[in-house]
């Protein structure tokens, strides 16, 4: 027997020579595929029997859901309905949870007092860690518990691939891959998951664009923030009948703005840093299937609700302690947070925010879920302790005590929508690309976008004398 390794090169050379000799026809590939297809057709014809000509409901529904004219209105109606249900449904359980959890706060304080804990420890644990935990749970759990099952239901019904189909045209116009519509849809769940999902895109150029722009759609962590802020914004309107409608429209409008920015930045990237032609792909529309209700509830609760909540909680507790420290360590008669806020304030004002808001976004880097809780704690840290058990209390805190206008609320929402990705997402992008340059850009591009948009909105409002 000859040594295998010695044969290796020779064998490959031989193969290539054979290939040269045998390459007869450039259409060979098409003829091979054609023969396979007709054989498959023949066999299927012999073994498949349809008893009754079936009315093709799937096709009919698809004609409506993905039609040029009705596709988008239906999409926005469904999205709007999901948000409306979430906003109206979340209020009551939110209040109930807050009541229970703040009752727990008093009990914890009593317990620590009974154990003889020093007062600084009591304050860190109760006012810092426990309060931010209670905040995260009571504000975020109800919207998530309502929104995620609805979202999972749409996914299970097979509607999300139709959304991708509708959007495909636009992504191709932006010079990127149609599958980006799918990874973007994943981003609505979690941007880190969306970034991982970009693996389904084959072309490295298009994959990178999809990763860099995934953060422009609001994830689970930011939806509660947006929904709460929309409700705050609406509460200022006074007329309660229109409040929910207005809040729903505001959130739906932000989602559309996010998609528009995704497309615009993708277009910009594919014209500048990452030039190239879009590659084609086939998107299969899976059949509509009867959703498995129990599985939807279990999956949305375990995979999404608990997952996001657990992450928020693990981050919120230490962050709560840190913020308490920052808010209570005095330097020259002012807390560290106030120093930071004062220092950032002039810049923040330019983009329609204030120093505290910007501090909250920066401290919220580990997880977007805690931006709003941090902001409330920052605002509250100076003054007295308030139980934030309802939207009207938040409204009072933001609008009455800290002078928010509707421009402020809008800019906070836009900044939340467009700013740098959370720590987890950045870490995921770094792991997927293995290149610091792209990770840096993944943070820099959204941040610059957020600053530009907020600055424009704030400036325009000021010039027009609004707000």
């Amino acid at each position: 027997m000859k040594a295998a390794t010695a044969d290796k090169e020779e064998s490959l050379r031989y193969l290539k020579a054979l290939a040269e000799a045998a390459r007869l026809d450039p259409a060979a590939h098409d003829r091979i595929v054609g023969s396979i297809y007709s054989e498959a057709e023949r066999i299927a014809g012999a073994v498949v029997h349809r008893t009754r000509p079936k009315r093709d409901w799937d096709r009919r529904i698809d004609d409506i859901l993905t039609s040029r004219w009705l596709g988008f209105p239906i999409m926005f109606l469904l999205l709007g309905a999901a948000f409306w249900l979430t906003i109206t449904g979340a209020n009551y359980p939110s209040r109930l949870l807050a009541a229970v959890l703040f009752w727990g706060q008093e009990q914890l304080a009593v317990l620590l007092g009974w154990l003889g804990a020093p007062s600084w420890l009591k304050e860190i644990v109760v006012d810092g860690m426990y309060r931010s935990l209670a905040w995260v749970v009571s504000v975020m759990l109800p919207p998530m518990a309502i929104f995620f099952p609805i979202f999972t239901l749409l996914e299970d019904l097979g509607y999300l691939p139709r959304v991708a189909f509708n959007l495909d045209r636009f992504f191709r116009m932006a010079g990127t891959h149609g599958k980006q519509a799918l990874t973007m849809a994943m981003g609505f769940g979690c941007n880190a998951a969306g970034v991982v999902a970009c693996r389904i895109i084959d072309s490295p150029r298009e994959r990178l664009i999809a990763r860099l722009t995934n953060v422009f759609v609001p994830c689970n962590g930011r939806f509660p923030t947006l929904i709460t802020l929309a409700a705050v914004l609406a509460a200022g309107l006074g007329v309660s009948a229109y409040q929910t409608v207005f809040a729903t429209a505001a959130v739906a409008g932000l989602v559309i703005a996010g998609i528009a920015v995704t497309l615009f930045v993708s277009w910009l990237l594919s014209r500048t840093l990452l030039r190239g032609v879009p590659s084609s792909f086939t998107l299969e529309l899976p059949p509509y299937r009867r959703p498995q209700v129990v599985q939807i509830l279990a999956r949305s609760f375990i995979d999404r609700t608990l997952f996001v909540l657990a992450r928020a909680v693990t981050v919120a507790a230490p962050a709560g302690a840190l913020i308490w420290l920052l808010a209570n360590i005095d330097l020259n008669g002012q807390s560290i947070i106030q120093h930071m806020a004062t220092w950032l304030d002039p810049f923040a004002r330019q983009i329609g925010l204030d120093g505290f808001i910007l501090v909250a976004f920066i401290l919220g880097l580990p997880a977007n879920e805690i931006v709003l809780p941090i902001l409330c704690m920052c605002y509250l840290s100076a003054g007295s302790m308030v139980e934030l058990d309802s939207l009207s209390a938040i409204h009072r805190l933001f609008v009455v005590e800290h002078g928010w206008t509707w421009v402020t609320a809008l800019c906070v929402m836009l900044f939340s929508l467009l700013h740098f990705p959370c720590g987890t997402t950045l870490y995921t992008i770094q792991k997927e690309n293995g290149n610091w340059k792209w990770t840096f850009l993944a943070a820099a591009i959204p941040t610059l976008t957020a600053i530009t948009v907020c600055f424009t909105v704030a400036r325009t409002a000021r010039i027009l004398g609004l707000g």
Partner: protein
Amino acid sequence: MGLTSNACGWSANRETFGIKRNGSIPVIALAGNPNTGKTTVFNALTGLNQHTGNWPGKTVLRAEGCYAFNGREYLVVDLPGTYSLLASSAEEQVARDFLCLANPDATVVVVDATCLERNLNLVLQVLEITPRAIVAVNLIDEAARKNIHIDCRRLAGELGVPVVATAARYGKGIDELKAVIAEMAGNQLSTSPRLVTYDTSLERSIRFLEPRLKDILPPYLSARWAALRILEGDPYIFNTLHHFFEGCGQR
């Protein structure tokens, strides 16, 4: 004697696909189009006894799991869902390379009973690579609801390999599938896979190439299949073969 399976044991090639278990445990590959319930079949076979990761050197998700049947253990590798094996995407490349080079003891092709015709394209391509194939006609319940009936015995006759009807979602047909896998992995089944006959000029070229390829390829790699890929100018076939020779070089 040229390169044979003696010179190039398949275990060396299996290792390059991340299969660490050595020795006698049979390796079962699971292939199929996307959305055929392939993952449901995988779950029904292995239960919770599985782990996920990436294919070596690729960002394609990979899952493998184990199950025991009649006192024997089996390793199931869930290949990426693909419509064909023409290697135009990373998924197709991974699936094809695994079937060609890792020489699984049995390959289960999961097909969707509600759109059999499209799925058969993949089945026919798999049959060109390996005769050790089993077709699992899944979603048979959904097809019945849509008034589609599949004559599985006839299908088995047409394809020349075993066909099992399954509704993996309800665990239907899984035991039968396991029994057929056990027979095939234990060399108790002989198959005569249907090979697509191409037009006369292609067949003439195949007749020219096939014996020459047989001389240098290992016996489990179909020379007819390799000839077809060379004829259509497949850009990846040399990568695949190179990979195979690399596997030898490591020994």
